[in-house]
């Protein structure tokens, strides 16, 4: 037993070291694209395409980590968090495009509006449990997207309508680099917030709600306030990512600000990494997003999928993603961080056991 623990400890240390090196590389490589670095003959380690992918990855780290606060720690299966992403995107987008605010002044309002909205709808919605909460939050997500696209005033679309909203380009040198580091900073904030929450009275209250809401209430946890606060916190982080997205992407519409599939992706990421943990959702986001980009053929490293034509490739990629989703849900219900965190090892008996635990 002691030998086993020691070997797991070694694995864990190796994993942390490798992870740290990869993260450091991902964070530092983009700097080599600066003019100063290029003129000093530093080899180019990352190009524009990499910025784009890395920024998207960081964006999903934020969303998955934020979802974890309400879905993983509090145990409320929020299925409409994309609404907060969209609200954040449109808050910043409207302020920059229509009110001509500078981006950096408009950005802080994105999390504020998203959190306020979450608190508003959270009060009635968080009284629902289980499937009902999931479905209601999904309904809110869909309805907000539809409203944003369709609200007219005097025959003019208020939020840009079906043709979307164009933002003026944010004038700054090395724009790709700027947005990459901005998104990474928000991701770091999201992870730090999770870490802090898990070590606070607030976090213990949320975990108590997840494990047994009635018991938590009896123990003196103000369940309504805690749940709404967790929901609003998740919304604020998600909205912040949305606000950055709107200025980064320069164009937002219903399809890219309220994509329903993001709801599923952020949950899958949190689940893949491990819900309720600090780093799990972030790890899951990196893994899954890299895989999605790899299958889609947009990574520099790419392999041909045998027997598949170039045209059919994105479709086959989706099929593979679907199969993977099914496999993860059935066989690795506790997330992959379970293997690296030191409590289990990937083996046939682990897979058999997780199957037995959940099977009919």
């Amino acid at each position, binding site marked *: 037993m002691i030998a086993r623990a020691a070997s797991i400890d070694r694995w864990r240390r190796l994993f942390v070291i490798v992870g740290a090196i990869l993260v450091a590389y991902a964070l530092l490589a983009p700097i080599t694209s600066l003019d100063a670095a290029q003129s000093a003959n530093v080899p180019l380690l990352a190009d524009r395409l990499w910025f784009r992918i890395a920024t998207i990855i960081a964006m999903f780290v934020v969303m998955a980590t934020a979802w974890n606060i309400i879905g993983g720690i509090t145990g409320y299966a929020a299925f409409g968090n994309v609404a907060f992403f969209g609200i954040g995107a449109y808050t910043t987008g409207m302020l920059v495009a229509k009110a001509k605010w500078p981006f950096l002044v408009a950005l802080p309002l994105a999390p504020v509006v998203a959190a306020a909205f979450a608190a508003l709808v959270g009060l009635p919605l968080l009284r629902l449990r289980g499937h009902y909460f999931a*479905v*209601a939050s999904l309904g809110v997500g869909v309805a907000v997207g539809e409203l944003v696209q369709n609200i*007219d005033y005097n025959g003019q679309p208020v939020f840009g309508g079906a043709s979307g909203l164009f933002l003026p380009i944010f004038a700054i040198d090395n724009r790709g680099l700027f947005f990459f580091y901005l998104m990474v900073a928000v991701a770091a904030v999201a992870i730090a917030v999770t870490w802090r929450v898990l070590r606070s009275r607030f976090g213990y209250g949320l975990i108590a709600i997840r494990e047994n809401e009635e018991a938590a209430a009896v123990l003196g946890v103000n369940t309504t306030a805690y749940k709404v606060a967790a929901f609003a916190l998740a919304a604020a982080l998600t909205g912040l990512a949305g606000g950055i997205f709107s200025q980064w992407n320069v164009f937002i519409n219903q399809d890219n600000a309220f994509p329903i599939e993001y709801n599923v992706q952020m949950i899958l990421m949190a689940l893949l990494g491990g819900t309720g943990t600090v780093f799990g959702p972030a790890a899951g986001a990196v893994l899954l997003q890299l895989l999605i980009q790899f299958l889609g053929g947009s990574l520099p490293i790419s392999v041909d999928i045998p027997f598949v034509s170039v045209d059919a490739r994105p479709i086959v990629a989706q099929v593979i993603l679907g199969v993977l989703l099914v496999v993860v849900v059935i066989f690795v219900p506790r997330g992959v961080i379970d293997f690296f965190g030191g409590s289990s090892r990937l083996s046939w008996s682990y897979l058999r056991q997780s199957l037995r635990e959940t099977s009919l």
Partner: protein
Amino acid sequence: MADFVQLVILGLLAGGIYVAVGVGFGLVWGVLNIVNLSHGALVIIGGYITWQLFSALHIDPFLTLPVDAVALFVFGYLLQRGLINRIIRAPLLFTFLLTFGVNLVIVNILLLIFGSDFRSVTPSYSGQGIELGPIVIPYVSLFSLAVAIALSAALAFILNRTRIGLAINAIAADRDAAQLVGIDLRHAYAVTFGLGAACAGVAGGLIAMIQAITPTAGEPYTLQAFVVVILGGLGRVSATVVGGLAFGLVEAFGQSIPGSGSVFANAIAFGLMVLVLVTRPQGLLGRLR
């Protein structure tokens, strides 16, 4: 007045489709506690079967509906038996994710087989209808409503008058007790899901006659199934029928609001769903369990 009557009729006719889409979804949710995000994809499979039989063999689309039902029953049975049964005791999010994964696989395989072209089923009588003065009732929609009601009646009959139906009801009441009295849970779960899928298949056949379908056209139907089931309430077929017709009416009147055009229909429907969930979670006619 004629406008109003026409709206009511159109709403009820559209509601027929929603009834067909909703009953299978409601059955699976109410009995198995599974929110089936692949429901829309199952609907679209039914649509493609009808389209294939109609365009290749020139079979009347209404006669293809039993084929849809049988094919989807088998598919649903195997899906539940092979995959979904494996996560029944997992947290509820897992069924969401699993069925979403299944949805992704089905939709994209359909894309590989049929491409993304629009397909429609147009029998000789499509576009015709009964004219009562200023009011027009299209045949296809009228027959669809009749089929949807008949489908619901058949489902209610199976659930209340047959041995497997009683077993399904027993599971809905108490899974462990049902197992104790000797019900084969794996089989009964699979049959329930198969019945739900069969209803989805029939709904797909009806939808193919009313609008052009593509492999990705199923997602709105999953969302609409949510609204229908929530509006009516879980646990009874009749409640879903009321929910479907009510949804059809809400949509018809939502589309008729001057100035808004058809665009607010979805937002109104989902807003209404959230409102019902918050104020009356058991639905308009549902029973709290």
